[in-house]
């Protein structure tokens, strides 16, 4: 079983931030649905048996669902109204990966309408079916096919109704632009006309024929971002832009350090300020005031003393995460190459920080918030306020990015607590410093690798231990019988969680760095060495495509210039990257001159947006490769600002060339994550080429390693 199809994915160890919660019991009745949506046609899509959500639910004694009997699960629904308008409902959320567009394309393709006909309702716990969350690159491989099935079934229903009305064989009719046509008589009926006065509901499973990718007309094309105009005019309302009548602004008192205990608190001065509400409830201390300025002043007027335990610093990373010598099994030998790699804690730093607006009405709670897990946040709120989940509605406006960093509902819980006390809606927008400190981080990690090569350049032994950062992408795709890989949990000094591609970035960094060092031992070209040890045709294809486009064979050595290659496969995507770097030895600086990345994820749904994701992943990966590291000591983050945490900017961007391989014969996989894994080792290997220095720690900027 491939990892991406496995129910264990839901419990990947590095998803530390996910808490177990009960599956939503889908209990909307037919009458509820039509009351909610209006008359017309509703198609409900049952989750396929292969869906990890359903599989996990059925695992008896499974970690997450404890063998509960579950109702048949609905993954999505689609409604065609009497005016012919089409609305698709999914619990997925838009955080910049442009799935609002790609899912519109999926529905439009099967309904034979332009994407402008499709409205997507996303991430609203009252209106959309339960969804685990928007993560793991699951939207394209699992949600898009469900929506396509719903749309195809809806098309069949309207064709059937038209055929009945005309007393014709449905197979003799055609469909275009939202109308059913009878080519013989040139009659036609719009979807809305056909559904006038109807209240039809159909539940479908997997048995609906879908349009094959080589016949796609809307899917497979570069449809521009849905609602683009709202974004370029500033009209789109992110959570942080929301306003409600009488709304207050909230601020939360943050402890002086992680794991600190509140020793004394004096809120009298804050309470004396007009219009200010102060809440002290257990560990939670917060204020709400009519303006942000007032809330900040009230917060500053609170006196608090904290006591924090001794806590480690980032410089102690190896000792904390792997407090013993390396633990390899293999016997020492001259042909064995062993090394230890490290990756630091890094921050997602989404440009829109955590934000929420909470409003209580008649004991019911509504929260607008930017999260990748609206249903998960509903669960957090239910637990925090001892409320049944049906008393809570979580709505996720299209959000200012997440990268795996917004799986939790901190701001939602904080805003709801303050709103409850104040009796008015409350908005909380975290400051950049709060986001850099009180969100969770991509885990730091220590990775030990030991490998043996034969005289012919094939790998005979491979042992790989990841301490703390995670198990995603840990298995080598190279052809190594008996490879040993192991993920070891460790006591993390910081709160940690998911990040774009999870630990696959760390594991690819270590593996692909080690591959280059082995190629040197074998005195082989890094690409030839990889191909000699690689059978996977899809991975070979991206390596060859990247190398060819880059001009790997004809690359010319120059002083302080280097060329590196790296690649891998993760979450159904195949990636290879060639990088060229310039090294300033005296200044200890590295510049990336050029990056060529080949990517393949099955049939391409939207070429422009795929290219955008791949370019974005390369740019984001550049930050983790070269500069990004969270520094901490004694429970405090030492660089919680952009002025102290270097992220990629315009002049850092190399010449980027993306080569997309379109495999119309293969199902589409997600693309938001995997393209990030190859850039760091490609740069590292290019530095090795330029300088002979084998760096083993991210970030790479300091050439001393």
């Amino acid at each position, binding site marked *: 079983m491939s990892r991406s199809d496995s129910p264990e994915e839901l419990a990947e160890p590095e998803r530390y931030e996910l808490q177990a919660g009960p599956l939503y019991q889908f209990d909307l009745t037919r009458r509820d649905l039509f009351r909610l949506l209006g008359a017309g046609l509703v198609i409900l899509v049952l989750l396929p048996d292969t869906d990890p959500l359903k599989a996990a639910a059925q695992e008896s004694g499974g970690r997450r669902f404890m063998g509960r009997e579950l109702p048949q699960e609905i993954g999505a629904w689609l409604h065609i109204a009497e005016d012919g308008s089409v609305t698709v409902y999914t619990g997925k959320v838009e*955080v*910049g*990966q*442009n799935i609002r567009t790609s899912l519109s394309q999926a529905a439009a393709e099967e309904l034979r309408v332009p994407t402008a006909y499709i409205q997507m309702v996303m991430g609203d716990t009252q209106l959309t079916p339960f969804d685990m969350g928007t993560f793991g690159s699951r939207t394209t491989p699992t949600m898009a096919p469900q929506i396509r099935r719903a749309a195809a079934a809806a098309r069949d229903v309207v064709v059937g109704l038209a055929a009945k009305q005309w007393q014709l064989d449905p197979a003799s009719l055609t469909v275009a632009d939202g109308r059913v046509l009878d080519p013989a008589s040139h009659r036609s009926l719009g979807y809305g006309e056909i559904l006038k006065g109807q209240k039809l509901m159909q539940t479908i499973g997997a048995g609906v024929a879908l349009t094959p990718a080589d016949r796609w007309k809307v899917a497979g094309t*570069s449809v*521009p*971002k849905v609602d*683009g*105009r709202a*974004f*370029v*005019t*500033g*009209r*789109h*309302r*992110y959570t*942080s*832009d929301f*306003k409600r009548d009488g709304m207050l*602004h909230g601020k939360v008192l943050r402890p002086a350090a992680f794991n600190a205990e509140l020793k004394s608190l004096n809120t009298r001065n804050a309470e004396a300020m007009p219009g200010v509400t102060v809440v002290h409830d257990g560990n939670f201390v917060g204020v709400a005031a009519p*303006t*942000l*300025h007032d809330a900040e002043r009230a917060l500053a007027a609170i006196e608090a003393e904290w006591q924090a335990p001794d806590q480690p610093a980032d410089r102690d990373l190896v000792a904390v995460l792997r407090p013993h010598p390396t633990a390899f099994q293999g016997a020492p030998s001259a042909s064995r190459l062993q090394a230890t790699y490290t990756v630091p804690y890094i921050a*997602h*730093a*989404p*440009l*829109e*920080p955590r934000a929420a607006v909470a409003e209580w009405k008649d004991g019911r709670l509504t929260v607008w918030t930017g999260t990748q897990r609206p249903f998960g946040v509903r669960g957090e709120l239910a637990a925090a306020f001892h409320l049944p989940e049906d008393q809570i509605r979580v709505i996720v406006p*299209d*959000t*200012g*990015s997440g*990268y795996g960093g917004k799986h939790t509902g901190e701001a939602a819980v904080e805003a709801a607590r303050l709103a409850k006390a104040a009796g008015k809606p409350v908005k909380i*927008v975290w*400051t*950049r*410093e709060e986001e850099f400190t009180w969100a969770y981080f991509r885990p730091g990690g220590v990775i030990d690798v030991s490998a043996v090569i034969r005289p012919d350049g094939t790998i005979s032994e491979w042992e790989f231990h990841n301490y703390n950062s995670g198990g995603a992408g840990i298995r080598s795709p190279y052809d190594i019988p008996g490879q040993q890989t192991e993920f070891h949990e460790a006591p993390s000094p910081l709160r940690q969680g998911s990040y774009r591609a999870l630990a696959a970035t760390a594991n690819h960094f270590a593996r692909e760095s080690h591959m280059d060092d082995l190629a040197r031992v074998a005195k082989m070209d890094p690409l030839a060495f990889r191909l000699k040890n690689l059978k996977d045709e899809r991975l070979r294809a991206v390596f060859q495509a990247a190398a060819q486009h880059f001009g790997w064979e004809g690359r010319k050595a120059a002083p302080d210039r280097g060329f590196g290659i790296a690649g891998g496969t993760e979450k159904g995507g195949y990636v290879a990257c060639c990088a060229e770097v310039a090294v300033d030895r005296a200044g200890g600086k590295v510049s990336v001159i050029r990056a060529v990345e080949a990517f393949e994820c099955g049939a391409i749904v939207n070429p*422009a*947006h795929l290219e*955008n*994701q791949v*370019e*974005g*992943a*390369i*740019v*984001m990966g*550049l930050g983790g490769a070269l500069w990004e590291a969270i520094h901490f000591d004694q429970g405090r983050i030492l660089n919680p*600002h*952009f*002025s102290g945490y270097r*992220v*990629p*900017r*315009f*002049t850092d*961007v190399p010449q*980027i060339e993306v080569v997309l391989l379109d495999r119309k014969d293969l199902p589409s996989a997600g693309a938001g994550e995997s393209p990030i894994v190859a850039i760091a080792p490609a740069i590292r290997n290019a530095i090795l080429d330029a300088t002979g220095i084998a760096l083993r720690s991210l970030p790479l900027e300091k050439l001393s390693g």
Partner: protein
Amino acid sequence: MPNKQDLKINGSLHTIQADPERSLLGVLRDDLDLTGTKYGCGEGQCAACTVLIDGQPAPSCITPVGSVIGRQIVTIEGLEKDGKLHPVQEAFLAEDALQCAYCTPGMILGAAALLQENPNPSDAEIAQAMQNHICRCGTYPRILRAVRKAAQMQTSRRSSR
């Protein structure tokens, strides 16, 4: 008691009552509901809060509102004229230079100011001028293309007049 102040925003006069030390960003967003201007860092490091003050891009998060009384302020809401987008806005759509788009209003104003000063910038000049704008989604390559395209659009509009 906060002072009454007149702010010239997008060609209109707005009378506000605000402590002059408050940030322009806070007044725009919270008092005037002009939420196209975004908070990103509060320290002038990310340019999500960029507005134009007398034509010059400025980080509104560290600009006290008292310092801009009587000056011409343009926010993203002021670029569209009579339902017609500014060429930079059009170019962002044409190049699909958007992912989460939270940085987009600031980017567009930064680019509009650049093209006002330098109608035909090189790629290096664009990158240098936009260096303070952070896009965490890494849309820089497309944004660069969009700015290039906007420059071409403006040039061809001028020459067709």
